Each structure stands twice: as C-alpha cells, then as structure tokens.
C-alpha cells in the first residue's frame, strides 16, 4: 500500500469516528424524550439508563390523539408554518438578489437596519407588538401571526441569500443577457437554480422559527381552536402536575415533520449545481 493510500484510510476512518461520536451526542437527549414518552406512569425521572423502559407502553401516544386536540394543533401549525416558509423564501430570494447585484441609494442602510431589528431583546417587543396587533384587529388571526413570524425570520434569510448570491459569479448573468434573457429571466432561470442550497437553508430556517415558537404565539392565538403545537404542549404542564408522558409523546411527534422536511430538502442542500457552470 502506498503512503497516500494509508493517509487516506486514516483520514476516512477518523472521519467516521468523529461522525459517529457526534451522532451519539445528538441522539442521546432525544432518546431520553422517547424514554419518557414510553414510560407507563407520569414520571420524568428514573435512575435507569435504558432507552426502552421496562413495561414500555404506547398509551401516551394513543391518549394524545384521543384525549387532546393534538391533530387540530398539528393542522394549525402546518398551515401557519407553510405560509411563513413560502413567504420567507419568496421575499428573501428577491430581496437578497437586489442587495447582492445592484447598487442603489440606501442599500447599506437597509442591510444594516435589517440586522438592527435582530438586536432588540424579543421579550421587550412583546408588549408594544401586542398593542399594535390589537389596534389592527389581528389578535386571534392567522394573518397576524404569519406577519410576525415572517418579519422575525426575514432579516437572516435576506442576509443569507445575499451572501450566497455574492459567491455566484456575475459572468453567468452577463452571458444570459447576451443570449437575450430579460433581467427577470436571468434571475429566475440562471441564478435561482444555482442558489438552491441557500433557498433550502432559508426554507428550513423559516420553518423552524415558526414551528417551535411559543412566546409570540401564546400572545396572539388565545382562542383554543387556533392553538399551535407549542402552545398545546405547554398546556400539559399548566395543571397541578405536568403530564410528562403526553409531553414526551407530543415532543417526539412534533420533531417528525422537521426530520422529514430535512430529509426531503437535504439533497438540494448538497446538489453542487455550480459544478461545471463556470469555465475557467
């Protein structure tokens, strides 16, 4: 075996070891939630280190569907989250492009003021935000919460898209323009497909920021019929004792859509589309 082969073997083995260690670190706390959800009695603590507890039961999962409005919460959350994700992706894809490719008056100020919006401690925006939504009649409305969530996720998404567009050489668009594409066509047909990994991150981020959000949702959606998953989950602990079993089961199910979404989107995350699109 040559020297470079041995080196490569060591590198690959080391990589797998690192990945497996971090996978264990990532999974372990989640497996704790699984344990709680499978425990027969409502206990959070136990000295056992086993992941599948003795006399494991799926009673908590059944109760979740039979005794609580879990499906309704799931539906509400899906509705809100998918709208926010779609809005986030469209607005960030366009705004990011404008910021990346063109010079215009107030560009720097606009970029920086978007960053500034992130610096304000969220807890102190709550009271004024609530008053504003009451005045606009947007309390207990999906529109109200969708606007709030889109606004929270947008600054990062726009910055992120802009950063990614910056790495795409503008010679591609010039070539497109020479071939007779309009400005919108070069954006839509040439640049956007190349930005697929960034679009995936934008979508994931928008999805995550609204899927698990509790504080704002609890202020805006007071009608129990409009509750989202995090509010529903929190309600398990509002009684005298926390229903840990239900809590654990719901937590597991809340995580599933995110994992599915990530599985679907991740092939675009590493699509490597720039490969071969620029010569020289």
């Amino acid at each position, binding site marked *: 075996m040559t020297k470079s082969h041995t080196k490569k073997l060591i590198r690959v083995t080391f990589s797998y070891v690192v990945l497996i260690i971090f996978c264990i670190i990532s999974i372990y706390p989640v497996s704790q939630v699984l344990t709680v959800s499978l425990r027969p009695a409502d206990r959070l603590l136990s000295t056992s280190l086993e992941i599948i507890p003795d006399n494991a039961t799926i009673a908590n999962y059944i109760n979740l569907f039979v005794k609580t409005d879990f499906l309704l919460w799931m539906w509400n959350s899906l509705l809100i989250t998918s709208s926010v994700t779609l809005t986030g992706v469209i607005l960030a894809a366009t705004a990011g492009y404008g910021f990346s490719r063109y010079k215009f008056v107030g560009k720097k100020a606009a970029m920086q003021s978007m960053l500034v919006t992130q610096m304000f401690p969220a*807890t102190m925006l709550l009271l004024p935000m609530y008053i504003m939504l009451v005045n606009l009649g947007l309390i207990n409305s999906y529109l109200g919460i969708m606007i709030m969530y889109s606004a929270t996720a947008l600054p990062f998404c726009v910055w992120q898209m802009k950063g*990614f567009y910056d790495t795409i050489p503008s010679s591609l668009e010039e070539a497109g323009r020479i071939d007779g594409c309009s400005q919108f066509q070069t954006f839509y047909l040439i640049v956007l497909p190349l930005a697929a990994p960034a679009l995936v991150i934008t979508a994931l981020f928008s999805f995550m920021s609204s899927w698990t959000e509790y504080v704002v949702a609890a202020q805006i959606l007071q009608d129990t019929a409009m509750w989202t998953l995090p509010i529903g*989950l929190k309600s398990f602990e509002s009684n005298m004792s926390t229903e840990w079993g239900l809590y654990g089961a719901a937590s597991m199910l809340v995580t599933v859509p995110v994992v599915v979404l990530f599985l679907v989107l991740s092939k675009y995350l590493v699509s490597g589309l720039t490969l071969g699109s620029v010569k020289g």
Partner: protein
Amino acid sequence: MNQSLRQKIFIFFLVTPALIILLGVVVYPFVYNVIISLSNMNLRHIKDWEIVGFRNYAKVFTEPSQPDFYVIFIKTVIWTIVNLFFHVVIGVFLALVLNQKEIRGKGIFRTILVLPWAVPQLIVALTWRGMFNYEYGSINQILGKVGLPAVEWLRSPTEAFAAAIITNVWLGFPFMMVIALGALQSIPHDLYEAADIDGASWYHKLRTITLPLIKPVMVPAITLGTIWTFNNLNIIWLVSNAGEPSDSTHILVSFVYKAAFNFYRYGYGAALSMIIFFILLIFSVVFMRKTKVTEAVY
C-alpha cells in the same frame, strides 16, 4: 422605457416587499419601547405613567442590584463567546468532514446531526435539566460509570451556568453546520483540482480556498448568531429555572425578563433593553467594518 429606469423599477420590486414588512413590525414597537424606557411605568403606574427622563438608565448603572449589572454583563459576554466558539468550530468541522467525497451514508449522518436543531427548544431545555439532575440525571450516572465524581450541576452557580452553556452548544452547532454545508457547495471543484496540481497541502487548501470562499455566507451567520446568543432567553431561563440558584445564572436578557415580567418594572426593563440594544449595535458595526461583509467577493 430606457435601460436604467427599467433596472431601477426591477430593483424596487426585488427589495421593497421585504423592507415594508420589517418596518411595520419592528419600528413601531421600537419607538414604543423608547417611550416606556423614559417613563415610570411599573405595577403601581400601569395606566397613569408619565415621562420621567433618563432616571431608569441611571438606575441600571448605579442602583446596587442583586446581582450586579456589570457582573451580569461579563457573564453575558462569556456566555456568548463560549457558545459561538463551539457552534462555529464544531459546525464548520462537521461540515468539512461530511463534505468529503469518500464518506458514505451522508444523508443519514446529516439528518441525525441536525436533530438538536429540530427538537423544540422548550423540550430540549427541560430534557437537559432532567439529565443534569444530581441523583437521577443520566450525566452524573455516566460520570459515575467512568469513575468520576458526581457534579452538583443545578445547585451551584458556576456549574449551573456551565450546564446552560453545554445545553446551548448542543442546540446550536447543527445550524452552523447546515450553513457551512450550504456554503461549501458554492466552491467550484476546479479550484481544488488546480491546487492539487500545484501540490498544495490539505491545510493550505483550507486556508486559501475553503475558508475565504465560505466567508461571505458564514460571516452574516456568525454576526446574527452572536446577537441571537446574546439575546437567547429560552435556554438560560429554562435550564436554570429562572436564574437559580438565587439569581446567580442570569445573562442580561433573562435579567430584563425577570425585571419586566416577574417584578413588573416596565420602565426599568425597557431602559435595560435599550442598553442591550446599543451594546449589540456597537458590536455589529465594529464586526462588520472588520469583515467587510456588505461588499461582494467577486
């Protein structure tokens, strides 16, 4: 219609929708907060508050509070730096490892590694709190198995603070990993091929190709990550159970939350929020000057 006017209209339609939403949702609450910070709004003056000037700001710096403002500020800085350091180092490292072409099962690894980000923070915090429990928690049990003494994680100030940091590091690295993975895809392969022909070492390629080319994507993520970590209320609040033991684990934002929502000192809380805001503003301006992030690389 001439060329430059058309371009102006195109830019206008690209940028305006996002800006309108932001202005509406952020500017009004911001102005409102400035007014409250100059007022005496608290539990006794909830409706009949009046403007009292900069009294609240003076209180933040001079009033002997328990814990002290300067101590909390230093803790917040430590909290932010330690968290960000591990988020970025672990995240970029895992992305580089995952991005090697010899690795099989990338999809499975990626999905498992993103789990900490996928689980709702509320659940994460309470689960880790359970794991840090002195008698029952799995962390002390694992420490015991390898022959190390059990740690009083949640009952002593330093350890409780460390517990919150560990939880937040666990929670935050997948985000940076995903960003770095996305950024790595934009690097053309021929750059590495050219470097290989020149006989460049692994480290040399990392320094001269990989890191400079993922920078435009990483720097905004790091800037925002710093701001979010500085302002991250959830984890420190839930893991330390509202600052236990005896308010010694606060960072600035959880201290504000306690002042405003547990003690109803709205004016004081708003003033402290303004101070947090200015600290972050100064940080970002300096950081962006240094990294020149608003300029394009090509």
